């Protein structure tokens, strides 16, 4: 009898050991996982969307541009201006390491830099095409903070090499399981905060709830900021590879 009781006790202990971790708090995700999830929070692997960009400068009237965009994977994207009329047809293409600009007035396709300003606003071409942060940066989980009223993970992103635009990014991502980005501060090599991105207005769009407003504020140019508002999003559309070629850019496809 005592042997049976001891076997029973051992079994109970093993069972408890197996069950116990599940009944406690789940482990926090690591920095890379948080960053990957945040990278996909607004647009997935592939998407088609329309958005409105508003560029605000002190003492100047606001400039509003509407555009259609397509994204495929991490390094292919196309954006075409649809309004105002005088800018309709202007297009940006990202494919691999190269970015091109098509100017309908000149009927010319020119190569531009990924770090150049997109459309005269505070987003760079690289920001618009949402190159994966995980590809360019080494993330570290640096704690938790409340930012914009949200409980967030704080990530420290260090550039993997000197070719990346910003030497360091401090990135806050919601801890509530949505992994929505909330804010990003971009720093230069010298440690100056050059600009900050605020991500807000989560709402249902394209079949799921996601942040729909991104505001980039310059920390150097007082009062300058740019808003990107997603109007429609379609996840995982069928996209022809030929859409992401300079030839297609010129043909207006």
């Amino acid at each position: 009898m005592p042997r049976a009781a001891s076997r029973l006790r051992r079994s109970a202990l093993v069972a408890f050991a197996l069950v116990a971790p599940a009944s406690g708090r789940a482990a926090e995700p690591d920095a890379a996982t948080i960053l990957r999830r945040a990278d996909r929070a607004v647009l997935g692997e592939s998407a088609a969307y329309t958005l409105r960009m508003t560029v605000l400068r002190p003492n100047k009237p606001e400039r509003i541009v509407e555009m259609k965009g397509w994204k495929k994977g991490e390094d292919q994207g196309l954006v075409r201006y649809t309004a105002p009329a005088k800018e309709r047809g202007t297009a940006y293409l990202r494919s691999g390491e190269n970015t091109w600009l098509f100017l309908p007035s000149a009927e010319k396709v020119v190569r531009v830099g990924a770090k150049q300003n997109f459309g005269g606003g505070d987003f760079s071409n690289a920001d618009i095409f949402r190159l994966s942060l995980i590809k360019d940066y080494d993330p570290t989980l640096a704690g938790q903070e409340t930012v914009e009223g949200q409980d967030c993970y704080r990530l420290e992103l260090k550039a993997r090499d000197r070719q990346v635009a910003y030497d360091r990014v401090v990135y806050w991502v919601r801890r509530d399981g949505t992994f929505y980005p909330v804010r990003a501060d971009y720093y230069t090599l010298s440690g100056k905060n050059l600009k900050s991105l605020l991500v807000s207005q989560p709402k249902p769009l394209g079949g799921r709830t996601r942040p729909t407003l991104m505001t980039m504020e310059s920390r150097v140019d007082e009062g300058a900021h740019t808003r990107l508002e997603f109007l429609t999003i379609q996840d995982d559309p069928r996209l022809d590879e030929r859409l992401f070629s300079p030839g297609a850019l010129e043909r207006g496809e």
Partner: protein
Amino acid sequence: MTLRLLAIALRNLFRARRRNALAGGSMAIGTAALVVASGLSDGITHQLSDNLIAVQTGHLQVVVRPDDFQSQNNPFDAYGQDQLPEADALARRIESDGRAAGVVRAVPYLFVRGSAVAGSRSSVAWIVGIAPSREPELRRMQRETSGRFLPETDATAVYVSEVAARKLRLGVGDAVSFVVQTPQGSVNSLDATVCGTFRKGAPWFDNAFYITLAAAQALVDWPGGATNVKVLLSDGSAAALAQARRCVERSVAAAAPRPLAKNTALKVESYTEAGRFSYAIIQANEAALVMLSGFLFAAAGVGVVNAMLMSVRERTREIGTMRALGMRRSSIVRLFVLEGLALGIASALAGAAAGAAVVLYWAAAGIPMHAAALSWMAGGDVLYPALRGWSVLRASASIAGLSTLAALYPAFTASRLEPREALHHA
């Protein structure tokens, strides 16, 4: 005999005073115009060359050029775009090796394009990192109009052109931020404080911001690097330049700074090669001067020929008398040629004096060049013409020579008159 003819020629000049005064007057005006035009052209050449040597290229410069480099004929061609490594060590070597060849100083500097932001204003910035204590020529050319020149060891000071300061509403003590993309591709910035402003007026300096070389090296993430080493000589003549160039090339080959970017090489360039843009302006000015000279000569020459032919016509009987008295044809020719020469010399002297006075006045007062096209041409918003003895001599000798040549045709016409017919001329 020639002296007697000269005395007769001089007397004859006063016989038809109004006609000779008009002909001589036109030549004097032509001489004065040539002297003034030469003064303007020499002033432009002097200013552009001095600017180029003091501020950008030195008499010689060492710069890294891509193998397929092609000059765009713009003022920024002189600046290198690629890193010249170990620039300070190279500069010191050039100085020590080149003393005997007339090298006074070799100075590294770093040029980068970026943006300058102050408050809500921003502008393009041509940022130049210099070693202030080794740039007395640059300081002389870009003299401070407020505040002070760049201090040697203050990595946060910036010396800015008045035009850029006005655009950004900057004064001494105000803050400005620079944002650049480093050659590797990352974005970097520098917060600086204005220590002083300068005025040059040349448009390609109007967006210049001078910071210390160390600050510029940190900004573009190039420790010890530069884009240019400019070499200043004690003698800028062609022969001295050629000798110094050979010496600098040897020093560069021996130092062989590394690493260099792919498909680039170190080049030693003279200021005329590096500053093709400025030399294009100088050549255009000289071409304009030659054309102006041509028109002036043509106008003056026609006037002299006309005056001399009138003189021959009026003095037909006198010429007949001289021939009847035994004066040879060659002496008739010499007489009229000497008249032309005397008229030419007198006009040239008067014109040169007037022209020189105008040039000297403007050389002291300066000629405002406010229009953008003029300040591009003059290399500054004030042009100071230069009076050079050689230019005055050239203008005077040209007019005197023209007058003499213009007298040849009338002189031969006079010499061909037959005495009998000339004496009977009514």
